[in-house]
């Protein structure tokens, strides 16, 4: 099922004042589409996802926006109804399986708890389905895993269990929050291959949050580049990677290490988001800064079919291509 996110704004009350973590984020995840959200740490990726799923802690509030999923607005929905969608219609893959899984409950109990939160099934049936699902995610001895605890598993195995839990109720959308950052590099590819294969096989949609451009390049159809709680650029992966329009997207792509080349880094750091931000948030680090960038927040506009960018520049003319840079 498709997800349409429009103008989400989320703020947190902290001891240091109000933090505007997400400042009007919009994007779409179409049917059967794999979308990657990329951005630095603190760019609001996770907060955006948590806002959509109703997982914002009490110190945070969603001040505006909609997230339409199968015709229903997840933001406006009562928390009780949203709970029934989470886990059943939207599967969630956590970043660190050992932080997510319950350490003192047998995995069979955790499968039961998740399934029973949504369906009336007896224990035997849940066990049968869980064993089948563990087989699908490449666990060879599902009986043993199911009767054991999370800490008895390797990182890759534990993440497979989390994937199995996410897919147990056959969700139409899978949300993965940095699904491989906590894993060994050698395991990362296996897990990503597994997730994307399972999602594509079932013709489901997926939203992957990552700071790894390689993940986006290899597994996603479309990429959403976020910075300071705003979408900077949104477009098909192949096109954005070949010719990024936004200076920030360009800088991100240039900072990917390449063999035989000196690593290009982006100077400066994320601005503080204590007040309602005005103007372009990237301006302090942007080599193309203009007067207008200080005053006017650039809207996310469609520059060519399927490609959106929020920048005052005439991006097709003025932003250099990756190769020329």
């Amino acid at each position, binding site marked *: 099922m498709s997800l349409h996110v429009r103008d989400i704004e989320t703020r947190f009350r902290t001891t240091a004042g109000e933090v505007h973590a997400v400042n009007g984020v919009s994007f779409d995840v179409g049917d059967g589409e794999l979308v990657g959200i990329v951005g630095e740490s603190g760019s609001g990726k996770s907060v955006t996802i948590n806002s959509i799923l109703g997982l914002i802690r009490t110190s945070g509030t969603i001040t505006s926006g909609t997230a339409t999923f199968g015709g229903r607005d997840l933001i406006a929905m009562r928390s009780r109804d949203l709970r029934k969608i989470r*886990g059943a219609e939207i599967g969630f893959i956590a*970043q660190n399986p050992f932080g997510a899984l319950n350490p003192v409950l047998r995995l069979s109990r955790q499968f039961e708890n998740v399934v029973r939160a949504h369906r009336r099934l007896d224990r035997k049936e849940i066990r049968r389905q869980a064993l089948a699902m563990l087989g699908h995610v490449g666990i060879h001895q599902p009986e043993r895993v199911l009767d054991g605890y999370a800490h008895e598993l390797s990182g890759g195995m534990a993440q497979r269990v989390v994937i199995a839990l996410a897919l147990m109720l056959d969700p139409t959308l899978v949300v993965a929050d940095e699904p491989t950052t906590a894993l060994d590099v050698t395991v990362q590819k296996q897990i990503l291959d597994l997730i994307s294969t399972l999602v594509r096989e079932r013709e489901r949609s997926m939203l992957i949050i990552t700071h790894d451009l390689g993940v986006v390049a290899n597994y996603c159809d479309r990429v959403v580049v976020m910075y300071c709680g705003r979408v900077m650029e949104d477009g098909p992966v192949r096109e954005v990677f070949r010719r990024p329009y936004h200076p920030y997207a360009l800088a991100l792509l240039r900072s990917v290490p390449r063999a035989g080349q000196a690593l290009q880094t982006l100077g400066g750091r994320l601005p503080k988001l204590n007040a309602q931000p005005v103007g372009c948030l990237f301006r302090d680090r942007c080599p193309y800064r203009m007067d207008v960038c200080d005053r006017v927040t650039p809207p996310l506009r469609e520059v060519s079919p399927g490609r959106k960018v929020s920048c005052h520049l005439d991006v097709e003319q003025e932003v250099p291509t990756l190769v020329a840079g």
Partner: protein
Amino acid sequence: MSTTNTEAGDAPSPASTELMAPAVGAPRRRRAFWGLVAKRLAFIPLALFAVITISFLLVSIMPGDPALAILGSTANEQEVATVRSQLGLDRPLAERYVTYVGGVLQGDFGRSFFTGQPIRDEIVKYLPASIELVVMAILLAALVGISIGTLAGYCRGRAPDKAVRVVIAGLEAIPGFLAGLLLIFAFFYLWRLVPSPTGRLGIVNIYPPTVTHFLLIDLILAGDWNGLRSTLHRSMLPVLTLALAAIPLFAKITRTTVGGAMGSKQIQYARACGLSEWRVVQYALLQARTPILTYTAMLFGAMVGGSAIIETIFSWQGLGQWGLKAIVALDIPAIQGFVIVTGFCTMLVYLVLDLVVAALDPRIQHG
């Protein structure tokens, strides 16, 4: 069992390396657990010996002469010397120590300087009453404290949390003896809702035949339901008084641990899976379980023997009240017996705590 980072499940290697052999893991864990039990039990005599020695030495260097305390200030030197020799106090410390330890090993704690009764009999008489009081108080305090602590931790920063914090601060500000006296004043003197705070049974009730020395259990064994009702009625205020002191401790530790758990990745994931809020609270309490149990054990250790004032106010005839009397009267064998018994109780409770925690948490490695 340690985690392994090898992704053997994906390699073409035999599937048996997939896990750290969980098939043999369960029996091994069980064996390791009983090994832990044996090890901890073996440690008890050693610790007990240390408690006996320290209590003996501490009591020996206490100021004051027990002979003078017995005879009163009018006694002459001759009389004092006679009594000292009767009590064995004229012999060297080392000799007295050996005699005492030898006695304790045979279950003989000596006789009270004042009543002449064997200390062992007095302990057997008074300890069960204290245990009954403390167990009832801790159960009540745990029930109330963990409930309001969970509520506060779950609603952290919001109105219920603030209300609970006010209650905690209020209860902490009232000393136990004052709470006891206020409760007696209100519930007995003003409203006549409970019987007078004079012991555990009414005058009309007859003590049941002694079987276990635990009054409640003996009453049940004797089938004396009237007596049981009377005892429980008379237990209400002392139990409440003692519980009031323990409720803030339970509430605070629960509030902190549950509150911390609510912000954890584990709880966020549980919610992302669509688990109900009841289940989410259950997960948070599972995380809070070990710290709460630890607190319970510490409280229990402190309360057996530590509730002397409450026991005195309500004439409970418990170990604390007996120990307090012994200290005031310089009844050395009684003081030593009191210290050893309370120390032993604390040790036992901590032992049980360690074993329960080890049995509950699958991650703890035994051995």
